[in-house]
């Protein structure tokens, strides 16, 4: 028996699933309600890690996309969780966007003196929520965190998240300034704003563009345009 075969059998004896071939799941997506975006990607995939990226300083529209997704899911009576690393979620605009607030679990990180920093808290909480099944969407908002901190998160963490969410009937969505999960992400979207529409001096509409940076199907970069309206428009 060759040493490779011997090694393989030894590993398999300890970890039976080490060399198991996994059948790829059928791709199921949750529509976001934004027609142009759903036409591009089919929505946000279940059993996958999704990254929605956009600038923090400029108004990119990434949070509006997340609210649209949460509204779609909570309106169906499903429960969602939002892990807010910077405590920047606004319940008022969320309700105006159609999010059913009783169906939303909001975890505000960094509001009390704890051993862990807000970013670490957010990841730990996301891990706990993933273990406790039953949420349709688990969103982690890291877009307010300093980019240099998020960049330090080891790839193994992203890999673990992607493996855990594979077993859950949920979508794990990260809101960030830049993508970090690399190949662990099933879908990476970049949202950016075009010049906004002003009614006189009043902001009434955003023109947004979404680019699909990465999908499981390895398609070339595609983009779509859509608009978001102001709460008062």
């Amino acid at each position, binding site marked *: 028996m060759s040493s490779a075969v011997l090694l393989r059998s030894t590993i398999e004896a300890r970890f039976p699933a080490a060399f198991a071939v996994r059948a790829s799941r059928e791709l199921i997506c949750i529509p976001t309600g934004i027609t142009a975006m759903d036409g591009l990607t089919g929505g946000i995939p279940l059993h996958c890690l999704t990254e929605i990226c956009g600038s923090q300083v400029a108004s990119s529209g990434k949070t509006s996309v997340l*609210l649209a997704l949460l509204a779609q899911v909570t*309106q169906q009576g499903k429960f969602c969780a939002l892990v807010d690393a910077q*405590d920047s979620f606004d319940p008022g605009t969320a309700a105006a966007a159609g999010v059913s607030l009783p169906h939303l679990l909001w975890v505000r990180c960094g509001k009390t003196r704890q051993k862990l920093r807000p970013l670490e808290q957010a990841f730990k909480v996301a891990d706990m929520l993933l273990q406790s099944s*039953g949420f349709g969407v688990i969103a982690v908002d890291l877009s307010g965190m300093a980019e240099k901190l998020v960049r330090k998160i080891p790839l193994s963490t992203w890999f673990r998240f992607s493996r855990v969410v594979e077993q859950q009937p949920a979508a794990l969505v990260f809101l960030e300034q830049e993508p970090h999960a690399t190949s662990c992400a099933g879908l990476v979207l970049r949202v950016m704003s075009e010049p906004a529409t002003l009614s006189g001096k009043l902001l009434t509409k955003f023109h947004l563009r979404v680019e699909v940076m990465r999908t499981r199907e390895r398609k070339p970069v595609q983009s779509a345009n859509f608009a978001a309206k102001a*709460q008062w428009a």
Partner: protein
Amino acid sequence: MGVIMFACLYVPDFPVQAAVLAEPEQSWESLRNSPMVVLDGPANLPRVAALNDPARKLGIEPGMTKLQVETCGGVLLRKRSIEEENSAHARLLECANDFSPKVEPESPGTVLLDLAGTGKLFGSIENTAKKIHARAEERGFRLRVAVASNPETALYAARGFSGITMIPRGQEARRLGPLAVDLLPITPEMLETLESWGIRSFQALAALPEIPLTERLGQAGLHLQRLARGQIHRTLAPAEAPPNFRESYEFDDPVETLESLAFVLNRLLQQLCAQLVAHALATNELRLRLDLEVRRQDEGEGEQYQHEWKLPVPTQDRRVLLTLLRLDLERSTFAAPIKKVSIEAVSVKPRMAQGHLFAPPSPEAERLEITLARIRGVVGNADEQGISCVGSPRIVDSYMPDAFTVEAFSSVSVCESAGANFSAEMPVIALRIFRPALETTVELTGEAPHFVRLWKKYRRVLAASGPWCSSGNWWNAAAWAREEWDVALKTATGMGFYRIYRDRLREQWFMEGVFD
């Protein structure tokens, strides 16, 4: 019509048995076989209040001092605890309630029950007595059971004879005859009188002529004679079901570690849940009280830690309750060791709901509650304003911007399907809030902002809409007044739309959030 019979459950050396039952179940047998005494009285001179048979064999008697007991060597000493005795008595009542709806708590460790009409459920009276005895032993009691045609005869038979005693109707006087008269509720003077007559047993007392006995001892003497003959008939005064479920434990030595506390909590919860199950009830509210060792100088009572847990669904699951308690206590620090722990469960009817077949999946209620407790352990309970860090957001009915609260999240109570009027024609622009609002500097041209300092840089305002003035709470100290502007700022990566406002009371500019 069935035969009217009464049973009496009598736990000998009840304070000792109560102390044993307060210990972990694994140690019950060894404790019963060891000499044990229960001490009561002032702290500087405690005396023996109760003892078990192994202790009697060593020559220990009630009333001996602690020092005298300690000279015997190898005797387990326990301080008398009324809570432990109440808890044990409640368990005995539950045991009796399993067999009859008419149960009278005669005294601590003694229970009378009416067996009329139970024949169809439990078989013959003899079988019922055996079943009662077996059930009580399962619950940790070593007790005596007596069955007779009236409660008083059953009571004295249980106190006087060990094991199971059956007294058929008409044989009461003969069966009670050998018992000593001091078992009766008799005054010392009367006992001395009877002693001087040579009357020492029920049989001798029963044989006395009634009229001369009444002439010498009065109606009390006649009553004692009728008790000795087994001729007193009365109806039971049934006990009502306990209104609440409470367990407590007082440590001999105050504990400092969570492990020691959790060990006791586990046992108390086990007893509570067993009681709830026995009553076909569950709990959705748990109250914990910890008495700390430290005493305040200005108050007579020691410091206490109290906490309440409200669960979204009723549960009887000990592990869920214990995990919730542990997770909360892990985050708490106490100024002093814990000397006593009390838990009370508010009883409610168990949840009897079947999940909707076509309803979307939701987090399992008990598991979710534990997850939320764990999350609170990571992010904390509430912020400086007292708003919870974990829960479901609610908008407060107020004109004040960013007025919200966070309520307990539950996957059970949400039954309404949200907004039927919702249409997703076009997403709504979200506002990301800076909490707290960022202090900033604004340069004005006329009334309108011209430059705004953002992330340490001054940025040109491309467009500004405002001012939108609002104010509130002017009648109290929480008064606020502001002047809002929505501004478009030029940034390196594009255009940023921000909401800024001027605090008109403090004359200071703040950045409230960014439209994203």
